[in-house]
């Protein structure tokens, strides 16, 4: 059901991990629906994304879109990174099955969330960036239930 590119990014995900003291970090998604993405960005003084890392809880497509999203934003300016849309992520992966399109939306959202965090931390306004919908509030309590 997945393209070769999706399988490649699922099997060999690029940029998995965390960044210590990131310029920006954002977490989007909802464990209830089965997808959570966290993206870390390291942005230099010239506003260029030097490093991007991710962690994802989710299906094959969720992992692949996160991986591709980090690849696409690396080396780009903040403004250029804003142009990395869900469509761009999907195209770069040679498409996704219709039921998995929301994963690419989540990837786009993760980029925006990390950029929003960067903007807030640095007290700047990024033209064209709106506060992303981060929807992970419900997870905290329930997941701690005893086994």
């Amino acid at each position, binding site marked *: 059901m997945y393209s070769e590119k999706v399988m490649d990014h*699922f*099997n060999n*995900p690029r940029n*998995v991990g*965390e960044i210590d003291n990131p310029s920006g970090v954002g*977490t989007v998604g909802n*464990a*209830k*629906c*089965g*997808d*959570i*993405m*966290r993206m870390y960005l390291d942005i230099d003084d010239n506003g260029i994304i030097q490093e991007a890392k*991710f*962690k*994802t*809880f*989710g*299906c*094959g*497509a*969720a*992992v692949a879109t996160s991986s591709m999203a980090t690849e696409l934003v690396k080396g780009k300016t903040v403004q250029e990174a804003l142009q990395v849309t869900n469509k761009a992520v999907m195209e770069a992966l040679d498409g996704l099955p219709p*039921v*998995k399109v929301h994963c690419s939306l989540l990837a786009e959202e993760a980029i925006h969330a990390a950029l929003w965090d960067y903007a807030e931390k640095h007290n700047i306004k990024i033209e064209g960036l709106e506060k992303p919908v981060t929807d992970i509030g419900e*997870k905290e309590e*329930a*997941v701690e*239930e005893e*086994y």
Partner: protein
Amino acid sequence: MSQLIYLDNAATTQVYPEVLDAMVPYFTEYYGNPSAIYTFAGNAKKAVDEARNILAEGIHAKPEEIYFTGGGSESDNWVLKATAEAYESKGKHIITTKIEHHAILHTAEYLEKKGFEVTYLDVDENGLVRLEDLKAAIRPDTILISVMAANNEIGTIEPLAEIGAIAKEKGILFHTDAVQAFGHIPIDVDAMNIDMLSASGHKVNGPKGIGLLYIRKGVKIRSFVHGGAQERQRRAGTHNVPGIVGFGKAAQLAFENMEKRSKYETELRDHLIERVLAEIPYSRLNGDRTKRLPNNANFCFRFIEGESMLILLDQNGICGSSGSACTSGSLDPSHVLLAIGLPHEIAHGSLRLTLSDKTTREEIDYTVDKLKTIIERLRSMSPLYEDFVKKQNQ
């Protein structure tokens, strides 16, 4: 290790070679229509009768109480819709459970739209129906109780005899969807007071596209598929003779070997469960520890999602299934796992492994070994695990 480790026998099973051998002549040699009058069709008719006898005997029914259908879903649809229609004048209330197969649940929802009332019983944390809940749900206008014999996801075996006794005492019809249980565990329609029962061929090493509905003599439900006079005018359509023969042969083998097979699968299943729970942290078993199908194991692994796990298992030649949303095509994980009280995020990380009598201990050990690596890998990239570890270290 063989190239394929098939651990999805609750989804479907291999057609046994003996079953296929029994079927083949009814495609090529005795292809006559059993409804025809000439001698040539006699062989086909005889084969259908023999299969019917075997299937009836296996559940202590009479041959004339067995009706062949196109499969388990048809049987479930037929029984619910036809019972509702036939007993509408007595009442419009039906009782079932929250953990039924969708063939029952979606048919019940359809009946609700047609003006029937349905009570969906909760189950306990192991997936068992509580008898006191059932008793409390019964009303003067209740016409049918439909409770599955064993759950297809978590393998829990429901207390059929106790439910049957309650239904009988109250004069309410009792149907059981036995698609997963038929041929795997003993079922006695008389001793358990079962009035109707659905079963399917391909879950017991028979062919796909053949099922049955047992209808106790005297239960007045009518035809669902209209047409010819087959099946005592209750199910039209030319008999699927090879399918019926295959179902009969498969059932014969299943009933003959049930004790031996059940013992073998139970031991192997317990080995699988013990290893997983002991060797994989933050794992749990879903369903009842002992009141479960001999071949069913169902786990949840925290912090990871089921589909990723299935893809990685597949890459190691292992076939399993999951109740995660991503495998269901909706945003919600399995309704069964939610019904036993699991939070969504844990239900997303479920894995069902269902064995057969051909599964070996080596295959199980190989699967657990691979599973450990896969889960470790997925956890290493899970933000939920990252948060959990950070919290632990605080």
